[in-house]
Structures are given as structure tokens and as C-alpha cells.
């Protein structure tokens, strides 16, 4: 296990690369879902406003 984590001496370069890339993936999933949730909320508000007038 220690050998694996050491990455043949390249740990300081390999692990940050993987961490950053998976952070970018996670953020993309989060951002996309948030964008959709916000757009749905805004559309609901517009529909409600139109219904009242």
C-alpha cells in the first residue's frame, strides 16, 4: 500500500493531478445540476407570474 501511494517517487505529481481532475468532474456535475435547478425555479416563477395576470 505504501508503495502504491508513493507512486515510484512521483506521488507529489500524480496524486494532485488525479485529485484536480476528479474535483473538476465533481464540480461539473454539481454546477450542471445547480444550473438546471435554478432554471426550473425561474421558469416556474415566470409561469406563475403569467398565470396571475
Amino acid at each position, binding site marked *: 500500500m505504501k508503495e502504491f501511494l508513493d507512486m515510484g517517487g512521483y506521488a507529489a505529481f500524480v496524486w494532485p493531478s488525479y485529485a484536480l481532475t476528479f474535483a473538476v468532474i465533481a464540480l461539473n456535475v454539481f*454546477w450542471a445540476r445547480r444550473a438546471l435547478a435554478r432554471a426550473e425555479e425561474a421558469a416556474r416563477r415566470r409561469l406563475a407570474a403569467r398565470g396571475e395576470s
Partner: protein
Amino acid sequence: MNFIWFHRLGSPPYVYALARRLTPWLAWPAALLILGGLWGGLVLAPPDYQQGDGFRIIYVHAPSAWMSLMVYTTMAAAAAVGLIWRIKVAHAVAAACAPIGASFTVAALVTGSLWGQPMWGTYWQWDPRLTSELVLLFLYLGYMGLRAGIEDTQRADRASAVLAVVGVVNVPVIHYSVTWWNSLHQAPSVMRLARPSMPAAMLVPLLLMLLGFTLLFGALLLVRLRAEILARERANAWLKEALAR
């Protein structure tokens, strides 16, 4: 020839419903492929004879770089379709691409930098490949900035589409930069006409990652596309039904 399917792709309610239905079919295979590629790349693949375990950065760097180019090409193609045929959905696709592409361009640049330090002895060089990839990031940021600066969606769509289409010249420059000029960056080892120059144990995890990232892009694009369509449809009647589900 029957082109009804093509016309349907210009219809916001149809595309919205299609995007919702397709998303899980892209997202779950993407997750499985990326996990498989991760296992293969970190555990199963043997260390490189020159770079040791340092070469494993390729499994996150190359897919990120591939994303940066593929997303831009998709964005420019969608923008061109939007400009030429004035299709609202095409502009929505282009707008949905930009933040995805920009973030993976950052990942490609930073992971490349982390790979460059141990192998080339430097985090950054004003090298053709590195510089043209940085220009790609500025194109994405310029595109998003331009959109953010124009309030009217239709005008933002058209102005940003012109930028996206013009900027596409940078895509082949990035791809061929390592062959056209002397570059620190290594030549392509997968995306080339001859057979990939890698043994299968190294190549297969990389292909899983490339395919996984591509499907991930599809899933992210479909979710963002729905948001873009909703914003463009104002208070159209079909939204009521779409949002009720």
C-alpha cells in the same frame, strides 16, 4: 429521404424531453468507464520504462485535453448551425458547452504542468502546444464573458457564436502543434494514423477514460442544455407540463 428527425431536433420541447430521457444512459456508463479506467490506469498498467509511475498522469491529462478540444469543436459546430439556420436549440447547445470545456481545459493545463515538472524540469514553457492550449482557455473565457455581457439572449447567442466559430482555427493548431513545431510535448501516441504506440495494458485504461469522459460530456451537456432551453422559452405553455413531471 425522411428528415423529420432532423427537424425535431430544432424543437425545444422535443429536445428537452429527449435530453431528460437520455441523460442516465450516458451518465451511468460514463461513471463505470471512468472507474474502470481509474483502476486500470493506477493499478493494472505497468510502470513506464522511462517515466516510471509518473506516466500515470496520462490517464487524467489526456482525457482532460481531449475534452477541451472535443467540447470546443462541438460548441463551434453548434454555434455555426445556430448562425446559419437560426436554430435556437443549437445556440443553447453551444452555450451549454462553454463552462464544461473551460473547466476541463484548466484540468488539462494544470495536470500537464504537474507532469512537465518531473519529466521536463519545468512547470511551464511558452511552447507551441502549451501556449495554444492556453489560448483555448482564453477563447472559452472570452465566449462566456461575451455572453455574460449581453443581456438579450438572442444577441448574446449570435455574437458569441461568431467568436466560437472564428476561434475554431485554434483546434487544429493545438492538435498539430507537436508535429508542426519543435515542442517539448510528446507526439500523439493514440490519436494518430498508425497503430497506437502503447502496449494494451497501458492503452486499454486510457481508451476507457477517453470514452468515459466523452459520455460524461454528453450527460453534462444534456443537463445544461435543459437549463439553457428553459431560460430561452420564457413562459411558453409547454413548460408547465415539462416542469410538472
